[in-house]
């Protein structure tokens, strides 16, 4: 082999070699995600068309029986309503609060900024199970919230927070707002810090109020991040599980049960029904996809 013929071939192989190394670097992560995320997703679709005991699954007849059953399942419909109640009330309140906190903390003349940020962000460090139990204890019938409100003469007699449908839902929503507002605030704060502060200063000189600055400068510039947080929160809310189990145990009478909680119960508790659980979980998947697409479309237009 002559030297002139060998040279270009060697270069090509070096490039190919790099390309191959690149693929090798991606391989473990890619295989794991395909194996433990996408493959189970298709299996879930298949299982959702089946019936019978977990050990002896057969295709149900008619094929979509599990999906038909959902329409008549009062608990499923209740869990769907509950989950959407949390979504519709909690997510907007939380994102608005996060935006307000972030814009207050973004002021350059504010003192103790770091301290405030740490405090508001701190709830993020608690496990979902932990904070659920803390809130359950705080809002217990003979618990501290009742004792405090009665001491302050706001209440005459204790409220049974966790045992009536509306207040139990309210406690879950309050707990969720407590846990996640700081998390979203940090996203907004990070994005706000990339906006040149002189924009705000010149707006102030032009006489723009804080509210005008928020609506005319901050929110339009933060649109992509708002979209990201909205999608994340929606996704998270549709998967609520730890709170439903540990704060209210789904009760009273399924008034606070979430879809994930009901799916877990259907999968593992009393008469496990894998087919039906898979069908319900596929509905969650579709809802997440639909809501994400809607939000992206809305986010695009504005």
């Amino acid at each position, binding site marked *: 082999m002559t030297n002139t013929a060998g040279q270009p071939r060697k270069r090509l192989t070096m490039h190919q070699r790099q390309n191959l*190394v*690149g*693929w090798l*670097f*991606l391989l*473990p*992560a890619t295989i*794991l995600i395909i194996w*433990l*995320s996408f493959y*189970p*997703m298709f*299996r*879930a679709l298949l299982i959702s068309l089946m019936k019978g005991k977990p050990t002896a699954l057969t295709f149900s007849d008619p094929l979509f029986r599990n999906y038909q059953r959902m329409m008549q399942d009062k608990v499923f419909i209740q869990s769907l309503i509950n989950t959407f109640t949390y979504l519709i009330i909690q997510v907007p309140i939380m994102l608005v609060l996060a935006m307000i*906190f972030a814009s*207050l903390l973004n002021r350059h003349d504010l003192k103790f900024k770091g*301290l*405030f940020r740490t*405090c*508001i*962000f*701190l*709830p993020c*460090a*608690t*496990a*979902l*199970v*932990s904070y659920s*139990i*803390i809130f359950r*204890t705080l809002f217990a019938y*003979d618990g*501290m919230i009742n*004792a405090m409100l009665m*001491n302050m003469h706001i209440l005459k007699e204790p409220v049974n927070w966790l045992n009536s449908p509306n207040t139990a839902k309210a406690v879950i929503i309050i707990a969720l707002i*407590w846990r996640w507002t700081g*998390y979203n605030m*940090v996203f907004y704060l*990070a*994005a706000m810090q990339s906006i040149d502060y002189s924009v705000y200063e010149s707006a102030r000189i032009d006489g723009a109020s804080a509210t005008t600055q928020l609506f005319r400068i901050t929110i339009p510039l933060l649109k992509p991040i708002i979209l990201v947080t909205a999608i994340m929160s929606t*996704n998270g809310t549709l*998967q609520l*599980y*730890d709170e439903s*189990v*540990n704060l209210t145990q789904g009760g009273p009478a399924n008034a606070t049960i979430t*879809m*994930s909680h009901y*799916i*877990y119960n259907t*999968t*593992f508790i009393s008469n496990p029904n*894998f087919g039906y*659980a*898979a069908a319900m*979980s596929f509905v969650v*998947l579709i809802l*997440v996809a639909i809501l*994400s697409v809607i939000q992206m479309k809305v986010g695009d237009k504005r």
Partner: protein
Amino acid sequence: MREGAFKKYFKRTMTYLFLIVVSFLSVFPIYWCFVSASNTTAEILGGKLLPGSHLQENLTNLFAQADVLTAFKNSTVNTLVVLVLSLTVCSIAGYGFEVYHDKAKDRVMGLLMLSMMVPFVAILVPMFQLFSNLGLMNKTMGFVLPSISTPFLIMLFRNNARTFPKEIIEAARMDGVGELKIFLTMFVPTMRPTYAAAATITFMNTWNAYLWPRVIFKQNSAITMPMLVSNLMGGYVIDYGVVMAGVTICTLPTVIIFFILQKSFTEAIAGSVK
């Protein structure tokens, strides 16, 4: 003019007041939980806000009631294994997606990012089947496997790999340094802040995980801290002092990590926004 100054002063005061109230409300439940670990049930429910003298008693009862040492050890081992594997797999993938990127790899990246949209509960049933068939129930590996490769970490490492100068890689290649060696000896040390950020997020998520451990760990010997804490609320008579001691033990590690690595945690979030 004077009135304007007053209004400005008033507004400033209100801002501080508002932030103080919000900060107080954010910290209070955690403070109250820690304090309650040293109080009796009656004191906790009655709203005692200061540390008491029953810490030792609550801890003794807690350790008698539940296998805290096992749960703490399990949670620690699970978390450390996930940390090592997840940071290795995701960082090398993020580096790969950025440094060797071409059309095909970008498409794979897009596909992996789509998996962010797959809710875990949606794959609960097939995952349970898969892992019991593989004999991974009650095994550390069973818990660890699904947590290793996460789209969020891959994205974080890829976005941060962009700041790593390509010239350095080219120069090293000229000197005949191998591709893996470039990654290990040049990329890893310079990206220490990104690794810290990824570690914080992974630590929080893994330590606090509840749904998947509950599915995969059926034996008492495999129980994790959040599972143990959840079980404490199961009895007919609940000793809230014991419960709060348990919650405190479960929460302290993440709160400590939060304070040590808060800066990198915030940076991680900022990095994912880029």
